[in-house]
């Protein structure tokens, strides 16, 4: 079941098209990473989803409704936005009490979430004296107040120390494990690689990829690396099978293209060659990210003349990255 649906979202700020016909869905129980370079439109998308920004076009739904139409939104959706902000003269506890009052939540719940994010000790300290990481934790505490089943997080790891990042990762995993749904934007790709089930990558406001993380990162990337003390013999055998071999820059290292790791291993066994290392390099999320986003930027730097024909689908991503089937958009 789709907990979050975004269909045909477009939003223009002045002359900048921040989001351009973006569609994707987030399934229940998934952690979906939402990636893109700065200015790609991530924050605008999340803010439109949460009713803070009025979309020019698009259909945005959380639990089947517009955010503005949710009954008790704080009990259904928790959100942390990039510019999480606080009145500097208010204490952390009072900041949360103000928000808790909207849903009629008791002060007990405020103290619970403060303890959960590790701010119990400084609950009565003014937010003005908080570090960036503490503010980020307070933002998370606010999102968790209503015990929501859906979290929308914009760069939540920003400013957290390594301990905080690990805590967040474990929290999100257990949250999703209990059936919760998470949409999380981040520029810390390693974080997303460890946390997300699915990844949506955007650039220049358009979707570049939308696929399970595993699908994106199991594609072989580059040649197979083989290290052998008998590299010469192995290279000759491989070449004899019509497989392209290059010498690596280190002694005994071969870079094999045109053959899988399995093929190389079987050949080595047949020939009785000792192999010290055999690695089929997979693409990392980072590689996929840069591959897709640089393509998008390249397209964008040569824009068509105004009114001229569009230069084909901009960087629709590679076939296997899978541009999800565009759902029929409708004005909300």
């Amino acid at each position, binding site marked *: 079941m789709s907990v979050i649906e975004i269909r045909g979202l477009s939003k223009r*700020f002045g002359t900048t098209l921040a989001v351009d016909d973006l569609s994707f869905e987030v399934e229940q129980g998934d952690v979906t990473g939402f990636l893109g370079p700065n200015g790609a439109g991530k*924050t*605008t998308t999340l*803010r439109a989803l*949460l*009713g*803070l*920004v*009025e979309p020019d076009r698009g259909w945005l739904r959380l639990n089947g409704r517009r*955010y*503005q139409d*949710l009954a008790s*939104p*704080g009990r259904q959706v928790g*959100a942390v*936005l990039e*510019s*999480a*902000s*606080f*009145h*500097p*003269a*208010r*204490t952390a506890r*009072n*900041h949360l*009490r*103000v*928000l808790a*009052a*909207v*849903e*009629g939540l008791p002060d007990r719940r405020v103290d619970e979430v403060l303890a959960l994010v590790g701010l119990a000790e400084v609950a009565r300290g003014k937010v003005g004296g908080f570090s960036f990481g503490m503010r980020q934790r307070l933002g998370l505490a*606010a999102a968790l107040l209503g015990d929501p089943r859906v979290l929308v997080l914009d760069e939540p790891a920003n400013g957290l120390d390594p301990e905080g990042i690990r805590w967040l990762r474990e929290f999100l995993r257990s949250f999703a494990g209990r059936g919760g749904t998470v949409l999380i934007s981040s520029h810390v790709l390693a974080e997303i690689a460890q946390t997300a089930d699915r990844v949506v990558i955007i650039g220049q406001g358009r979707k570049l990829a939308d696929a399970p993380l595993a699908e994106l990162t199991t594609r072989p990337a580059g040649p197979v690396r083989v290290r052998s003390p008998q590299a010469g013999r192995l290279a000759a055998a491989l070449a004899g099978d019509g497989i392209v071999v290059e010498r690596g820059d280190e002694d005994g290292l071969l870079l094999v293209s045109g053959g899988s790791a399995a093929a190389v291993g079987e050949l080595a066994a047949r020939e009785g060659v000792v192999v010290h290392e055999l690695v089929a390099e997979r693409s990392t999320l980072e590689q996929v990210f840069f591959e897709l986003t640089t393509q998008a930027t390249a397209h964008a730097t040569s824009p068509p003349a105004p009114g001229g024909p569009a230069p084909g689908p901009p960087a629709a991503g590679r076939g296997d990255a899978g541009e999800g089937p565009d759902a029929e958009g409708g004005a909300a």
Partner: protein
Amino acid sequence: MTGQIRSELLKVRTTRTVWALTALAVGFVALSTVANSYFVTAGVQAAADAGSAEIFRSVLASISTSGAQVAPLCLGILLLTAEFRHNTITATLLAEPRREVVVAAKVVAILVVGAGIAVAATVVGLAIALPWLGLDGVAVPSAGELPLIVLGNFLVLVLYGLLGLGLGTVVRNQVVAVVVGVVFVTTVEPLLVLAITGLRFLRPLGGVAAYLPGEAASALQRTVSVAQDPGALHQLPMLAGGLVLLGYGLALLGLGTRFSVSRDIT
């Protein structure tokens, strides 16, 4: 809605601004009541000429227009503009995404808080004026008059709070809104009235001037504002003055909610 109102009142209570502004208001009321009581009773002629109701009206006008009206005005302005200044508007709208509900809750909050400031100002004003005027032999006006004077000043303070909130919804920038509000109330408007009453060729505007917020406040207090010249300005009846002041607040709120509060929060 009740949750949102509770949240708004908690916002006011959890920073010191409200206490500072209430102290400011009370200070203005005390100073001005003392000064007014002194001058009214020191001028033997004036005291003899004016009836006691008129003396009470002019002395007790200190409760609301001594500068004390700036407190609810600023508090009203801050209620919304502080949210934009510190970006707490994001958290507020995530908790209650219907912006008109947020504005409505703030209206209730400023009415409650304005009433609180008005109670403090009234208590201080009466505590000074009643014994002072009594010692000087000014009789307490006949039944019904004193409560009416108190009510008029009370409403002036409450309605200035609403006016401030309205201004804050239209002008989201906190510094600009406070400067515009305070300078208009304390400088621009008195100068306008002075010009209209003092300059012969502006006299025909007297009827229009009666609809300025400060003049509407004078109508609620039933005092003549700047020039002690009853012929210079037309004054609205008390009820009309109250409605005019209320009208300003509601008009600004309507404009601001429609065109300013509704904008994207980026």
